[in-house]
């Protein structure tokens, strides 16, 4: 009997959209090698890498699974490490009010 192919952990992403959205009033600006988030009250947070790439992918609507998959080669991370980096970044941005759950 042929072995059943294990379902990809990201199989559900075929119709997945990001569970997050950018909070109202928040903007960002892409610089030469960094990205600056502006909260609309004058505060700014500059993101270096790989967080700047995480922000780009999240705000373009990729699911966290896909963001992790894409960040892994960008930042030379293995998949678990990439997932940790992505989750930590997103959690921080939610705490800071830059992102909110959709």
């Amino acid at each position, binding site marked *: 009997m042929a072995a059943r192919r294990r379902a*990809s952990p990201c199989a559900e992403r*075929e119709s997945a959209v990001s569970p997050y*959205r950018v909070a109202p009033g928040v*903007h960002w*600006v892409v610089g*030469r090698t960094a990205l600056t988030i502006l909260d609309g009250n004058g505060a700014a947070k500059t993101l270096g890498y790989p967080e700047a790439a995480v922000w780009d992918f999240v705000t373009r609507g*990729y699911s966290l699974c896909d963001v992790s998959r894409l960040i892994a080669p960008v930042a030379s991370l293995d998949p678990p490490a990439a997932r940790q980096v992505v989750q930590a970044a997103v959690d921080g941005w939610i705490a800071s009010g830059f992102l909110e759950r959709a």
Partner: protein
Amino acid sequence: MANISITTACNRDCAFCFAARTENGARRPVRHMPLPRVEAALDFLGRSGVSEARLLGGEPTLHPDFGRVVDMVVARGFGLVVFSGGLVPEPALKKLETVPVSAVSLLLNAVPSGLGRPLEPARLEEVCRRLGPRVTLGVTIDSPAIQLPSLLDAIDRCGLRRTVRLGLGHPAIGAANSYLRPRQYPEVGRRVTQFVLLARERDVSVEFDCGWVPCMFPDGALATLGHGADSLGSRCSPVLDLLPDGRFISCYPLASLGSIVLHPGLDARNAREYFQDRREKTGPCFLGPDCDGCGWRARGECGGGCLSAALLRRRTGRLSVAVARRVVRGC
């Protein structure tokens, strides 16, 4: 400094105009500032310690009581500055001719970029000849296709003030006016540098309005620009434009940042503080990615150019749904 926009009426339709439309893109209805409000505006200037009354529009000389406005300004001892597209109606022209040269300046926005010749040249020529040294020619540059040398000929021919004022076409947020893209700045900087040298040979000085930045100019050109270069990079700050309806805005390109109503307790200092606070809330934002690591910016010699142009780089939380729904394969 503060500008008083006494009317929205205009007899031109300049592509770069950032006053013609509201922040929603709708054309501004024709409205004239009532004379009592003009009086209140002059009171504002007085308590703010401002010595000049700068009249804007639309075309300010189209105000039905333009003559009375001029009288009010002169009677109160303010210097009179009129920003005009040059098609000044005859009654207004006659009035301006009566104001001493030392007390008035008509900033005439001259040749539309790239056309090489202003509309209704005969009327413009007449206005210039009759007002002579009261006139300072200016240009709003919204594309690199600028033809400046003819301005020098006009200055010599009509005996105008021997200064040219150069402005940049800035984007009005929400409006679709023609503006100079920052990536076109270097070509403009190169052409302007050549013009400054030519003007100097003809004993004409060049002044720069807001939004000009040092990196526009070729290496070594800043020294060429002389005193005009002193203000480069430093000028984007609240101008204070008073609209006919009695509201102050920071400036026309940044009209969407909010407004504050003219009232007896308001002076220029606290109006500027209000708008500076609104501007600072937009956060650090500069003209382009190359502003990161810019030496002028690091030394505080450049404030980052026109804030309105810089704000166009801001991104908001619009998701790109097409990307989000694309099927992704592989892991």
